[in-house]
C-alpha cells in the first residue's frame, strides 16, 4: 500500500512539474492560454467570417482572443487613445485582446525579434517598418496578399505615402506619422533674455542662445545620452547632409556619408563640451532629464511629435482641463541649421510604423477574419484622426478630420511648422539594423567624454553594419 502511495505521489509530482509544458489546453486546465481557449473551431470560409465580424458581434462561441503588440505604451501620448480603441473594438465585436504593448526601446525590439524567431509572435502588431522589421518580413503579410481575400482592406490609405519595408513592399497599415523637432520652454528663454527662435534659426545663433541660458544659471538642453541619444544623433547628422542624401548609410570611412556622420557626432561633442547638456546627461535616464524641461529648468528638448501630447498632458489638471496659459509657455521650433545642405525648415519625419498581420494569425481560420477586422478598425478614418490629431501627418485618402475649435495653442504651432516644412525626410536610423545601431548609440557617451573619437565610432559602425 505504501509503495502504491509513494508511486502515486511521485507520479502526481512529475505531472505537476510538466503541466506547464503542455502545448494543448486540457480539460483540467484552470487557465488555458487565452488565444486557444476561447476560439471556436470554425468551418466557415474566411470571407464569410470577416463579413460577420464586421457587421455584427459574434456570439460567445465565435469570440476569439487576439494577441496584440503595439508601441502605444508608457509615456506615448496616444497610449490612452489606444486603450480606448481596444475597449471599443472588444465591446463592438465581443472578441478579446491580450495586449502586450510596450515602449519601443532596444530591449523591446529584441523581444519582438525573439518572439518571431521562437514562433511566439503576436497575431497583430503595430511596429516599425524599417530595418527593425526586416528580420520577420517572411512572417507577416503584404497588404496585397490580404487584399486578394479582403479587397477593401486598407483602401482608405494612400499607397504612395504609406511606409514600405526594406524590400520595397507594403506590409504595414500606417496610423499616424511622426516628426522630430525642437520643443522650447519660453519661460526659460524669457528668464535668460533669449528671443524665441524664428523659422531661419541657425546653428551659430543656437550656440549663442545656449551660452546665454547657461550664463543665467539654467540648463540649455534637456537630453540624456544614457538611453535616448537618437534624436540628437539624427538631427546632428541631418545638419551635415541634405534631404536628398540623408538616407545614405556610410560604406567606407572616407565616403561623404561617413564624413557627414562624423561631423554630426563632433557637433554633439562640441555642445557637450560647452556644458549645454545637463551635468548628468551621461548618468540619468531620459524621463528624469525631461523633467528639467517641464519644470522650467531647461530651455530646449529635442524630441518626436509624440512629446507634444505629453506637454499638453503636463499643462492639464487632473480632470484633463488644459491650462492654456501654462501651455502657451511651450512651443516647437525648427531645429537650427548649419547652412550646409539642410534648410532649417527641412524636417525629419514621415511614417515609420504600421499595423502588421502575422502569417500565424492569418493561417488560423478562427482568427483570420478577426485580425483583418481589428486592423481595419484601428486604421479607420475615425481612429486615425483621433491618433494623429493635429500633430502629425497621415496616409489617409481623405485626410484627418480635426475640429479646429478644439485645437490648443501647441496644436496650432505644430500645424504651422508642418505646413511650412520644405521637406520631410525619413530618419536614417530606421534604415540601420538594430545591433550595429545599438552598439553605436551605446558608444556615444564614450565619444562625448573623449575616450573614443567620432571617427572610431563611425568606423566601428561601418565594420559592424550589414545592410538589411
Amino acid at each position: 500500500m505504501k509503495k502504491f502511495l509513494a508511486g502515486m505521489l511521485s507520479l502526481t509530482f512529475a505531472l505537476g512539474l510538466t503541466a506547464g509544458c503542455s502545448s494543448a489546453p486540457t480539460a483540467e486546465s484552470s487557465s488555458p492560454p487565452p488565444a486557444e481557449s476561447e476560439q471556436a473551431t470554425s468551418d466557415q470560409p474566411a470571407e464569410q467570417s470577416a463579413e460577420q465580424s464586421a457587421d455584427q458581434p459574434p456570439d460567445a462561441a465565435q469570440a476569439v482572443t487576439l494577441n496584440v503588440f503595439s508601441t502605444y505604451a508608457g509615456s506615448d501620448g496616444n497610449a490612452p487613445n489606444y486603450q480606448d480603441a481596444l475597449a471599443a473594438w472588444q465591446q463592438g465585436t465581443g472578441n478579446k485582446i491580450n495586449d502586450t504593448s510596450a515602449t519601443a526601446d532596444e530591449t523591446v525590439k529584441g523581444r519582438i525579434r525573439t518572439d518571431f524567431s521562437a514562433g511566439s509572435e503576436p497575431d497583430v502588431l503595430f511596429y516599425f517598418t524599417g530595418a527593425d522589421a526586416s528580420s520577420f518580413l517572411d512572417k507577416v503579410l503584404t497588404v496585397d496578399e490580404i487584399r486578394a481575400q479582403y479587397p477593401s482592406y486598407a483602401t482608405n490609405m494612400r499607397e504612395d505615402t504609406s511606409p514600405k519595408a526594406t524590400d520595397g513592399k507594403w506590409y504595414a497599415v500606417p496610423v499616424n506619422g511622426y516628426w522630430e523637432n525642437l520643443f522650447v520652454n519660453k519661460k526659460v528663454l524669457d528668464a535668460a533674455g533669449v528671443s524665441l527662435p524664428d523659422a531661419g534659426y541657425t546653428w551659430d545663433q543656437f550656440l549663442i542662445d545656449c551660452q546665454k541660458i547657461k550664463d543665467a544659471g539654467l540648463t540649455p538642453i534637456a537630453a540624456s545620452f544614457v538611453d535616448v541619444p537618437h534624436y540628437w544623433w539624427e538631427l546632428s547628422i541631418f545638419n551635415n547632409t541634405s534631404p536628398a542624401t540623408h538616407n545614405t548609410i556610410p560604406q567606407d570611412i572616407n565616403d561623404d556619408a561617413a564624413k557627414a556622420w562624423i561631423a554630426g557626432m563632433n557637433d554633439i561633442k562640441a555642445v557637450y563640451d560647452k556644458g549645454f547638456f545637463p551635468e548628468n546627461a551621461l548618468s540619468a535616464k531620459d524621463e528624469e532629464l525631461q523633467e528639467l524641461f517641464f519644470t522650467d529648468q531647461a530651455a530646449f528638448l529635442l524630441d518626436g511629435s509624440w512629446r507634444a501630447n505629453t506637454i499638453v498632458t503636463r499643462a492639464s489638471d487632473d480632470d484633463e482641463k488644459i491650462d492654456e496659459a501654462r501651455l502657451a509657455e511651450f512651443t516647437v521650433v525648427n531645429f537650427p541649421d548649419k547652412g550646409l545642405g539642410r534648410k532649417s525648415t527641412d524636417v525629419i519625419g514621415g511614417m515609420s510604423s504600421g499595423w502588421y498581420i502575422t502569417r500565424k494569425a492569418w493561417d488560423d481560420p478562427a482568427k483570420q477574419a478577426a485580425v483583418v477586422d481589428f486592423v481595419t478598425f484601428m486604421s479607420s478614418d475615425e481612429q486615425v484622426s483621433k491618433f494623429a490629431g493635429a500633430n502629425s501627418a497621415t496616409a489617409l485618402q481623405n485626410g484627418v478630420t480635426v475640429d479646429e475649435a478644439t485645437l490648443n495653442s501647441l496644436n496650432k504651432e505644430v500645424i504651422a511648422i508642418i505646413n511650412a516644412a520644405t521637406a520631410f525626410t525619413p530618419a536614417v536610423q530606421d534604415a540601420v539594423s538594430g545591433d550595429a545601431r545599438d552598439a553605436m548609440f551605446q558608444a556615444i557617451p564614450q565619444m562625448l567624454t573623449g575616450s573614443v573619437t567620432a571617427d572610431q565610432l563611425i568606423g566601428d559602425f561601418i565594420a559592424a553594419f550589414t545592410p538589411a
Partner: protein
Amino acid sequence: MESMIYKKKGPLFLFLVPAFVFIIVYLFYPFIVNIINSFSVIQGLGNLPAGVNAPWYQNYVRLFQDQKFKTALVNTLWMLAGTVVFQVGLALLLSLMVDNIRKGAQFYRTVYFFPIVISAAALGLLFNMMFMMQGGMINQVLAGLGTKAVNWKEKFSIQTMLIPVMWQYVGFYFVIIVTGLNNISEDIYEAAKIDGADGIKRVRYITLPLLFNVLCTCVTLSVTGALKVFDLPWIMFPNGMPVDSTWLTGTYMYYSTFNLGDVDYGSAIAVFIVALGVIIARLANTLLKEKDY
C-alpha cells in the same frame, strides 16, 4: 514488515526522479547547449548557429581583450568583497546587538528582514529617487544645508550601486546568524560569566567560535550570490551607465545577449560566470572548513 520501505530504496529513487528530470531538462541541458553556443557563431536572438567560430575559442580570447568585460569583472570582485564585509559583517554586528537586548528583538528582526521581501524593481526606483541629482532625496537634504547638488550616480557610481545591494541582503544573513545565536546554550554563557568572561570576551571566546559554521555558510552564500547580482544594478544603472563604468558580469552578459544580439559572446560570458562561481565556492569551502565542536 513496517520497516521494509526503509530497506528497499526503489520508492526513494521514484521520489527523486521528477526533480532529477526537471534539473536535467531545465538546468544541465541548457547549460551544455550554452557551452556549445559559446563556440558557435550566433548573431541575433533565436537564430540558429551559423557555424563554429574561427578559432573555436575566439569568444574566450575576446573576454580578456574586452575592456567592458574587464570593468565588469573588477566591479563584480568589488561586489564580492563588499558582500562579505558589509552584508555578512553588518548582519553579524546587528545580530550580536539584537541578541543582547531584552525587549524589541522581534521588532528589529522584522525591520532588518523587511528589505528582502521588497522587489528589486521597487528598490531600484527607491534608491534612484534617493540618489537622483535633480530633486533626489539626498540632494534635497544637501540643498537644505546650503550645499551644491552632487551627481552621485556619476561621481560615486560604484558606491551608489553597491549600497542598495548590500542593504537589501543584510536582513537575510541577519536572520541566519540570529538563528545560530539562539542555538548557543545559555549554560555556556553562564559558565563563561563565572570564569570572568563578559562583554567583548564573551563574543570573542564563546559566540564567534560557536557561530563559525553559521558564518561559513553565510560567507559561501554571499560570495556565490554576489556573482549573480543583476536586477537591482540593471534598474539603477542600465547599459553600464555612466560611460560603461558600472558593468557587472551578469549585466554585461544580459546586455551582450539581449540588447546587442551577440548570443555566442553572451554564452561565453555565462560560462565564465559559472566557472568563476565554482572556483570561488570551492575556495570559500576550502578556506572556511566547517569545524566540529
